[in-house]
């Protein structure tokens, strides 16, 4: 397992607000890292810094040996990224959008169309292939975003809430896809669905108010709760350990 992402004492402030305060972690190839935390905890901000969209206030991000500040294009080439909310050009059809991504990712020759077809079938968006993206449902939009992220078969995948807005069957499909790809890739996913962590992640990180509160396997996380309940464990970690016994049971 070689190292794909190395994040060291990463900080980000927006004026007086400290969104991320010194977060460090590594992700190896073959790992699926689950990013957990309450809303506004700094998950998306951390992902935006890894992908080179935001510049860190301090700290370093190394992706496959390239520093994201010194060599952003090399980092962007090796990453596939699904931004929060899966933004896409609404007026384009799925077909022209994926072809645009293929252009930018410099997919050429006979492999290009084959790869597009492969991804379209794998993600199950063939039936909306000719439709414009703005007419699609939330679930389809999300899947087009995932298709865009994996099109160039990247070494490193960063997916911000990949299953948000999907129905239970679609969630299941996307989780299977992530597990399949996990063998040789380094994958970070953020999610609010804690069972998802148990189902697909080999490691979990909890961030709250910009600080790293937990880094370990899902089993270790569950073990934090005397009820063997991952939701309970999450609440224990994010609300401070001293309050453990006062935690409401609802």
């Amino acid at each position, binding site marked *: 397992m070689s190292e794909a992402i190395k994040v060291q004492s990463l900080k980000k402030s927006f004026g007086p607000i400290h969104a991320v305060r010194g977060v460090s972690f590594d992700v190896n190839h073959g790992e699926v890292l689950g990013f957990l935390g309450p809303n506004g905890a700094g998950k998306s901000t951390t992902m935006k810094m890894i992908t080179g969209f935001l510049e860190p206030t301090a700290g370093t991000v190394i992706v496959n040996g390239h520093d994201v500040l010194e060599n952003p294009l090399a980092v962007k080439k090796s990453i596939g990224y699904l931004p929060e909310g899966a933004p896409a050009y609404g*007026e384009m059809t799925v077909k022209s959008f994926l072809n645009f991504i293929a*252009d*930018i*990712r410099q997919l*050429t020759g006979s492999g290009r169309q084959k790869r597009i077809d492969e991804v379209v079938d794998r993600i199950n968006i063939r039936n909306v292939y000719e439709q414009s993206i703005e007419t699609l449902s939330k679930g389809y939009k999300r899947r087009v975003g995932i298709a865009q992220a994996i099109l160039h078969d990247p070494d490193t995948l960063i997916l911000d809430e990949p299953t948000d807005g999907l129905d239970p069957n679609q969630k299941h499909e996307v989780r299977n896809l992530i597990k399949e790809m996990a063998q040789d890739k380094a994958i970070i996913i953020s999610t609010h669905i804690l069972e998802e962590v148990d189902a697909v992640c080999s490691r979990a990180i909890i961030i709250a108010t910009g600080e790293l509160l937990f880094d370990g396997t899902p089993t270790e996380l569950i073990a934090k709760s005397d009820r063997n309940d991952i939701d309970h464990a999450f609440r224990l970690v994010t609300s401070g350990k001293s309050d453990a016994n006062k935690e409401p049971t609802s």
Partner: protein
Amino acid sequence: MSTLFSIYKREFTSYFVTPVAYVFIVIFLFMTGIFTFYLGAFYESNQADLEPFFRFHPWLYLFLIPAISMRLWSDERKSGTIELLMTLPVSITDAVVGKFLAAWTFTAVALLLTFPMWLTVNYLGDPDNTVILASYIGSLIMAGGFLAIGSCISAFTKSQVIAFVISVVISFMFILSGFPMVLDLFQGWAPQAIVDAIASFSFLTHFTSIKKGVIDIRDIIYFGALIAFWLYVNVVIIEAKKAS
């Protein structure tokens, strides 16, 4: 295929999948017609040239070009696609120049579709067609100047309305910078050299010779430098505040 060309191609085709392109082109052609025949007194002048047609281009561009350029970056901000674009392996310069060239090509298409005007003047008389060609080229270069201003302004805001209004105001100052309404603002306190420099920025002054069919290298350099300057600022703005 270079990433610049990929951006260009996506941007250019996106004009034609929405009604924007068709609405713009129809209005542009309609307005050039009105200006030429009514305000420009094309028939009454009894001259076989297109000076009455080109004379009003700066004023048409003042309102129509910001309508094209306002969406270039504002829309990316508003829809969040700027995050997608800026995390793809594309340099900001490629993105800015690709988008600008796409908008410029679109303007060229609109301008080319005024060819019935050229046919009309050739049917009615015997105009100097090299003069007309030179004027077309000059008009297109001036359109590039308006576009570069508009593209840069749209990088500041996610509101297309704000981008439009500010672009019109700045373009208006560039059109009129040789005239008292702008110069009076500076006359009282600024050194004469600065007042002269501001006066020399006027689009109208630089377009005067162009619309007579004279392509002066100084006018070309002026518009070229203007485009380069605004696109450079555009790159800097995107670089500095792509996420805000």
